């Protein structure tokens, strides 16, 4: 099954019909999507600022990364599920949208890099006061990529509302 067939199929599912018909469903899903985005932004920012040595310097980065890992994974799961639901609103428009394709292309490396940075940090171990050991090179790049995938083009319809593509 090609990607085009997959989008065609998704466009004709009952779920897509419900999402298109209901104003509330889309709005609620979008709200959860934005809250997931905020939680992801907070978690990624705190870990990367710690890697830069800007905040929470008295705590080791591996401990911070370990504590925030559940939040990172949960917010990514929320974003993925709600993102898939939001796509159902305008499935074929998304398929043909360059911005949407770029977003997905950026999402994958950002996801891998964020999880990779966390994995590397949480497996590094070591004493709690070993701050400099945690200054790995993944932070700035991770932050840049994670920031990139969050950027998206919004429909010109509201202050903070955006369609998936």
């Amino acid at each position, binding site marked *: 099954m090609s990607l085009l067939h997959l989008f065609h199929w998704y466009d004709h599912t009952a779920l897509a019909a419900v999402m298109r018909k209901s104003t509330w469903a889309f709005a609620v899903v979008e709200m959860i999507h934005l809250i997931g985005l905020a939680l992801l932004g907070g978690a990624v*920012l705190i870990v990367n600022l710690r890697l830069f040595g800007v905040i929470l310097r008295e705590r080791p980065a591996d401990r911070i990364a370990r504590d925030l890992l559940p939040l990172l994974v949960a917010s990514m799961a929320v974003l993925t599920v709600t993102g898939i639901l939001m796509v159902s609103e305008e499935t074929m428009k998304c398929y043909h949208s360059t911005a949407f394709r770029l977003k997905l292309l950026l999402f994958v490396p950002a996801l891998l890099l964020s999880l990779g940075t966390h994995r590397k940090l949480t497996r590094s171990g070591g004493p709690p006061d070993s701050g400099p050991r945690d200054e790995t090179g993944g932070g700035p790049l991770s932050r840049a990529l994670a920031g990139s995938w969050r950027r*998206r083009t919004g429909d010109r319809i509201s*202050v903070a509302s955006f369609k998936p593509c």
Partner: protein
Amino acid sequence: MLIYDLAANPLNSNEWSFPLTECFHVASMALCIGTIAVVDLRLLGVGLRNQTAAQLVRGTEGWTIAGFSIVITSGLLIFSSDPLKYLHSAPFQLKMALLLLGIIYNYTLHRKVAQSSPPSGFRFVIAGFSLALWAALVFSSIFIAFW
């Protein structure tokens, strides 16, 4: 009489300026709400349990203020693209009320509780209300489009 020409506003005359401003608006909203939510989750006993809420407030407050500054600046620009439409929008009015309440709440009661050691029940109420407040603000933002 002073007449405001909407077409002269760069946000209405340039194809890229509005979506770009909206990108900054949404990203900075995620920044300030995200940093506040991390403190809220800590108060609820979730997330960074090895740091105190006071440490988290100190570490993130600059970023929260930066986020608020960009949100308000980009919001004013977006508002200028069609002031009358926004002024007459109930979700927009609700959003502004929630934003004002949220900022006051964040820098008074919420901050005081995060920097002290109150009983756990009260901490839960403060953090829960904060999360609900910011979620409501996001919801009202989204509904500006549907009203």
